[in-house]
């Protein structure tokens, strides 16, 4: 066995560098962070050959004098942290003092810097850990850092780098994240001497979002800005009408630092649950600001992971705020506000009738191209704050709203409803719609513990022998749903009462389906998730099916019920409810336009 030796500093640094610098984009990230920590208002990023040959970041920040410069490449040299106590109050990006040292280990590095307000610039070079001497140089105010031949001395790492376009894309992503989080800073990105992006400073990140991801997303954005109990949440979330097939449009920053955090992702998923289809993801751009002592950023060398001291508080706050904004900005008039009761009693029937007439008048007199659906009529402020949608933004797909004069509706093939609406028509999946209506109705009742249990004359017996464990696990949830259940010998249940919302459906059948489903459901699922899942299952089982013929009154009732739920985009299982065909499309098809 070879003798144990203490590793030489350079080897230690090389190992540490490998942790911090995974690929060229990580170096870019570290360097931009340094620039922003130095108070830059302008950051230029250049790279060649996917960053392998050259990375150069130039800023107009504070800059370093010759003394500071001399220390720049030393490991754990940092201007940002003085003592242990400071670790709890980290407000800057960098603090570990690893970035420049790491770059100096794995590349030929060069810094040129001129402190703000001084006349002289200096430069320093380092290669494979060997630091040269500080020399006078020439440069504008600010700092330029170059890294040549990244990983040139670590062939193993270099081998694992992807092709140059892939690495370039990673660098682009890094710059995008900073550009989105700091709309006040000018960013320029050039690859192989070709300008890729130039971002002038803007007031609002919505403009940068639009620049990067298109007008469509820009128009779907809803602003979020809320603060409670030491957490501030701001940014934008896209309406559920805009989705993509992965989470790449979900950007989260905590105290300005771009992070990928499970707690936040879960909040987002839950906030959008049942508003977007399965396997579709929403777009969000969220900034969480929280007291530095309430998070631990020192979890991962690259700092993309963090830990919240009170993750459930953050989770609930973020989820509820997003959900609230999605609902509020979404569908005024179709949504019963919490204080429906008070607004009901405060207004006389005449007042309410007048309001409705006024709405109708407005509807018909409004020019065709003004956004109708998201501007609550005057006096209806209870439903939503009207002007928190960025100016000029309108919803790309107005929600379905019945014809003011009672649009016609028909059932087709015992499965679909066709409905005449202003500006087009809706094709509605009757099962999906009913399922969704039930889902909301049941959910709100169950969550409010407001379930009426219809007792049964004779208990309904469900036998599921050999699955006592499943039954035992499912019982508390069945109880919350409104089933009153008693064990009836091994593997059998007696249902004494069923929630009234199942209507005429057979309680035993629904319980059987739930038990069946419970088996296959993920046992580790949180109770709330399971409950939600149950409600979705119940709604699905209790809803009318495709193939059921509906009387015209039933069709009407179903469509009227729809206005009581918040959105009708997809059923709880994520299938779409409505296909909207506009008159425009019809007219184009028939050559009238």
């Amino acid at each position, binding site marked *: 066995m070879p003798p144990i030796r203490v590793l030489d500093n350079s080897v230690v640094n090389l190992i540490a560098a490998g942790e911090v610098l995974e690929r060229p984009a990580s170096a870019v990230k570290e360097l931009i962070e340094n620039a922003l920590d130095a108070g830059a208002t302008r950051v230029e990023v250049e790279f060649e050959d996917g960053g392998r040959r050259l990375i150069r970041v130039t800023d107009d920040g504070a800059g370093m004098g010759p003394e500071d410069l001399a220390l720049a490449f030393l490991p754990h040299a940092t201007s940002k942290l003085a003592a242990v106590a400071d670790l709890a109050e980290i407000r800057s990006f960098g603090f570990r003092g690893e970035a420049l040292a790491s770059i100096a280990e794995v590349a030929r590095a060069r810094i040129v810097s001129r402190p703000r307000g001084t006349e002289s610039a200096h430069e320093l070079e380092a290669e494979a850990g060997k630091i040269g001497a500080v020399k006078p140089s020439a440069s504008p105010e600010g700092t330029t850092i170059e890294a040549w031949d990244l990983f040139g001395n670590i062939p193993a790492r270099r081998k694992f780098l992807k092709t140059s376009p892939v690495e370039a894309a990673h660098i682009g992503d890094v710059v995008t994240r900073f550009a989105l989080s700091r709309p006040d800073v000018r960013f320029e990105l050039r690859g192989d001497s070709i300008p890729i992006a130039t971002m002038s400073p803007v007031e609002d990140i919505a403009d940068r979002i639009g620049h990067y991801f298109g007008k469509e997303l820009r128009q779907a954005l809803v602003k979020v800005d809320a603060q409670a109990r030491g957490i501030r949440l701001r940014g934008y979330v896209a309406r559920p009408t805009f989705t993509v097939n992965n989470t790449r449009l979900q950007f989260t920053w905590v105290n300005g630092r771009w992070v990928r955090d499970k707690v936040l992702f879960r909040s987002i998923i839950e906030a959008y649950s049942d508003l977007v289809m399965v396997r579709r993801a929403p777009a969000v751009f969220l900034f969480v600001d929280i007291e530095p002592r309430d998070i631990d950023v020192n979890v991962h060398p690259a700092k993309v992971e963090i830990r919240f001291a009170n993750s459930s508080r953050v989770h609930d706050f973020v989820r509820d705020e997003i959900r609230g904004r999605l609902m509020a900005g979404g569908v005024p008039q179709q949504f019963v506000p919490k204080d429906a*009761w008070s607004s009901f009693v405060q207004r006389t029937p005449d007042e309410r009738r007048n309001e409705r007439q006024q709405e109708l008048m407005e509807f018909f007199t409004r020019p065709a191209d003004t956004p109708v659906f998201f501007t609550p009529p005057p006096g209806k402020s209870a439903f939503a704050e009207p002007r928190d949608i960025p100016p000029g933004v309108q919803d790309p797909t107005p929600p379905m709203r019945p014809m003011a004069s009672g649009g016609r509706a028909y059932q087709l093939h015992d499965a679909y409803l066709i409905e005449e609406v202003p500006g087009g028509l809706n094709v509605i999946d009757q099962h999906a719609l009913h399922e969704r209506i039930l889902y909301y109705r049941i959910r709100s009742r169950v969550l409010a513990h407001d379930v009426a249990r*219809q007792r*049964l*004359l*004779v208990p309904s017996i469900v036998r599921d022998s050999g699955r006592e464990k499943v039954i035992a696990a499912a019982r508390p949830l069945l109880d919350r749903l409104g089933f009153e259940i008693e064990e009836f010998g091994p593997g059998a249940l007696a249902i004494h009462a069923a929630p009234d919302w199942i209507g*005429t459906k057979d309680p035993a059948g629904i319980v059987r389906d739930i038990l069946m489903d419970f088996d296959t459901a993920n046992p580790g699922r949180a109770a709330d998730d399971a409950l939600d899942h149950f409600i979705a299952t119940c709604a699905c089982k209790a809803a009318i099916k495709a193939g059921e013929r509906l009387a015209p009154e039933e069709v009407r009732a179903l469509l009227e019920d729809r206005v009581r739920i918040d959105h009708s985009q997809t059923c709880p299982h994520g299938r779409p409810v409505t296909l909207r065909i506009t008159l425009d499309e019809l007219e184009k098809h028939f050559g009238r336009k």
Partner: protein
Amino acid sequence: MRFRCKRADLSQAVGVVASAVPARTSVPILQNIKVTAADGELTLTATDLEMGLRYSVRDVGIQKSGAAVLPAQKLNQIVRDIRDDEVKFDVDGKLCSIEIEGGQFKLTGADPQDFPQFPEFDEKKAVRINVDDFRDMVRKTAFAVSSEPSRYALTGVLFVIRENEARMVGTDGKRLAYAKKKIKGGPRDEVKVIVPPKALHLVEKIIAEGDEEIAFEFEETQMKAKTSAGTLFARLVEGSFPNYEDVIPGDPDKKVQVNPGELEYRLRLATSMTDDKSRAVKFQLSKDKLKLFARRITGEAGEASHEVAVKYAGPDFEISFNPDFFIDFLKVVAGGRPDVADSEADTKVEARAEAKADKAKGKKAAKEEKPKAPPPEPVEAPSTITLDLRDKLTAGVIRAGRDYIYLVMPLTIDV
């Protein structure tokens, strides 16, 4: 086959049997009516195989006996639309011509050989029940059955006939309606079958003017019923029916006497303020007072509170019910029929033809053409019914007279 008959008689008979014609079927011949002419009598038959109807028209001038199978809907429409008092039918093979003054119709039918056989009624096994008693029991119970096919046994009405007594019970598992009648005679061995409500309604359709009794014949899987003009067969519902006598709770300590009309009126008012799908009305009892309370928290929120004068001497008590269950019953007590969600296929052919006839002739003319079966005897609404309660988990028992009992299971509300 060649015959001549009164249009009104034929129209009525076609109207009756058309209610057994399935609206949708995979066996096309079932959308026809079989017409047989023999011995001065015309016999019309229709079936969906689950049940069937046969109805006769007397005093028909038959020139040549025979049989034809004609499309039900067209036939129904034609005999309703024409104004002549008399029509002439001339059938040659599958081709049928219907002649009236100044015109004719030609219809293509099907081969009578292909039409299902109608089972014969065996008079020797007949059990007889008074027409009014039968109608009354159907009216009092059929509305309460389950519309959920998965609880198959509950989709039918339990029909019990024993010596000197007949009973019918309908339940959907949450409420139960139970009516009984004294009868003369009856079988020595108790008959206990579950009958689809549609079959009971079809029996009512074949009751002709002057009929006093209906004869029933029960077999293991089917029931037959016979009146002076018509015969029905229907497949019975299989399955086990809950023991209706056991579920009637004993020892109620809270007895309420109330006027049914007043209760129905107040319940309706309260019901307007229940939630759409969660229909609960709270019954608050105190001395000689019943307060009904409903609240709506979704949609057009609001609440309703109404008082009904009752006779009650028990302790203060509170219980919730689905008001629809009460209203169904109270409608029956008042002599009406609750709206029953008819099982599919029911009388669709007839309804369509009627609608067309109405358009063609105007309402007045159409009204005269209604089957001339006598209207049900007007029911005298009792001035009081009793509601017996025990506790919040036990069924409320309502009695209207001695022979009509109705059970409603309460709603329990979490809070």
